[in-house]
């Protein structure tokens, strides 16, 4: 098991004692009737095995993106613990990554995990060249040899089908699909154990989407990292994932093998989602 999430919650607002009990899928609401706080993630338990690809599916507002942000710590969790294999505190014992100090957080975000955002503006620094963006990740994971850094950048650009002659160009001069691919290069260049993807292809045209999904699938097979993909698109989930969890109002309502969920959904909400595929 490479990732273990226990009782993770995120509440936006005052956060009273009733928040978690009076919101969720069965209430059909994420808003606490007592204090009006919004419960983004409600007491989620989730595990991920080595090399596994997990999909999180749900509609807008289900909490799936927030969950990802809590793992990567773009947002601070309100409650819960998250453990990652091999992440130990200074005392040698397994440590809750939510308690990580600044140095440990930097190590987690640069060497252990990588995140790919729906909007490349969040994952790339537009003041650095394409090569520079990748170099940043490689350098932060410890490499200080120029040629190796540059070679690694060229390697990933080639892998993601970006013309290598454009390595020194700035991101704003690339198309949306290309910017996304530079983001993927950057995320993979530090050899992460866990790759987090938040709607990686939403907003791109279908042919580009297909290419990028194939690319991600191929790289995952080749390199073998574990992956969590968030999407509202069941087609994406079907194409890439082994296991799927379905979220509604901050809670997981169903989990299982992707094929099973799509073919034989149990929870009424999942049934609704699956039947909505055109």
């Amino acid at each position, binding site marked *: 098991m490479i990732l273990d999430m226990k009782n993770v919650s995120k509440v936006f607002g005052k956060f009273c004692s009733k928040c978690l009990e009076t919101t969720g899928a069965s209430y059909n609401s994420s808003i606490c009737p007592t204090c009006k706080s919004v419960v983004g993630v409600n007491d989620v338990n989730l595990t991920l095995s080595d090399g596994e690809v997990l999909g999180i599916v749900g509609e807008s507002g289900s909490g799936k993106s927030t969950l990802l942000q809590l793992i990567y710590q773009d947002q601070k969790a309100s409650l819960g613990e998250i453990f990652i294999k091999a992440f130990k505190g200074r005392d040698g014992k397994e440590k809750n990554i939510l308690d990580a100090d*600044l140095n440990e957080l930097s190590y987690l975000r640069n060497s252990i995990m990588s995140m790919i955002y729906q909007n490349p503006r969040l994952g790339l620094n537009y003041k650095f060249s394409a090569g520079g963006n990748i170099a940043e990740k490689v350098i932060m994971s410890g490499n200080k*040899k120029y*040629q190796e850094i540059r070679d690694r950048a060229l390697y990933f650009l080639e892998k993601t089908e970006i013309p290598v002659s454009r390595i020194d160009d700035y991101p704003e001069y690339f198309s949306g699909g290309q910017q996304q691919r530079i983001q993927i290069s950057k995320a993979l260049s530090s050899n992460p154990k866990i790759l987090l993807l938040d709607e990686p292809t939403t907003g791109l045209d279908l042919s580009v989407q297909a290419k990028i999904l194939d690319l991600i699938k191929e790289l995952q097979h080749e390199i073998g990292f574990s992956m969590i993909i968030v999407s509202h698109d069941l087609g994406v989930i079907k194409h890439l994932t082994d296991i799927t969890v379905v979220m509604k109002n901050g809670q997981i309502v169903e989990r299982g093998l992707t094929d099973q969920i799509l073919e034989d959904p149990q929870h009424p909400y999942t049934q609704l989602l699956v039947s909505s595929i055109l």
Partner: protein
Amino acid sequence: MRYAFLDEEAKKEIRRSILKAIAIPGYIVSFASRELPVARGWGTGGLQITLAIINETDKLKVIDQGCDGSVNAVNIRNFIKSVTDVDTTIDTKEATIIQTRHRVPEMELQEGQTLVFQVPIPDILETVEPNLGKQKLLHANADYSKLWVLLYEDTSMYGDSRISNRYPVMVNKRYAMDPSPIPKYDTLKLNNCKALQLFGAGREKKIYAIPPYTNVMPLKFEDKDFSVENFNGHCCGKCGSTHSFLDEVYDDDGVVNYYCNDTDYCDKEQEMKGDK
């Protein structure tokens, strides 16, 4: 006038800041920088350090861009002398305190000497991140990625870093430090120096230090050489030295001449050659 111009409370505070800085090599310490009769940006940081540590037994040398005779050096030296009556010298070997702007003396410094640098910009991260709050976080995190990416981008575009002076150094393998606008030529002298090196930024209100025998390495890729200023085979027109930093000087006919930048070093070399 009070000895060394500053009041005792001011001197105490500056000394405490210096001690803290020495205890954490390369770490930037804030201090309550006083306005002096010399303008901000003209050496008030270096001046405050010198005034805080100087006493009657010291011998003071002041240089600006390598020269004791440069107007600003003369001005500062005269001011310090007028408020302390200390002995002054142009001989690097004799001096106990050397206040300098933009250069490290050519002659190797010894134990017991203190080199006081005048610093315009105390934080090397200013090159890539001007916001002070963010700078502090980056230092705390030892996150110097922006400096490294700049080095990468420059190397890709121009073959080497664009940074000419104020070349970033890693002190004691922990803090990235601004060595003040000394040429890269001098950056190598900071490493394992026998003398105490103190850095004062008056306008920015910061002090930092490198205690003697500290590891100081320029920030560079492991597989690239650290290139220093090159004088294309020229030697000093006065003393013939090929191992010193040279100034390019245009005379009235528009002809270029090369002379040692460190005037004391040049004088000594000429003396030695004269003796032979």
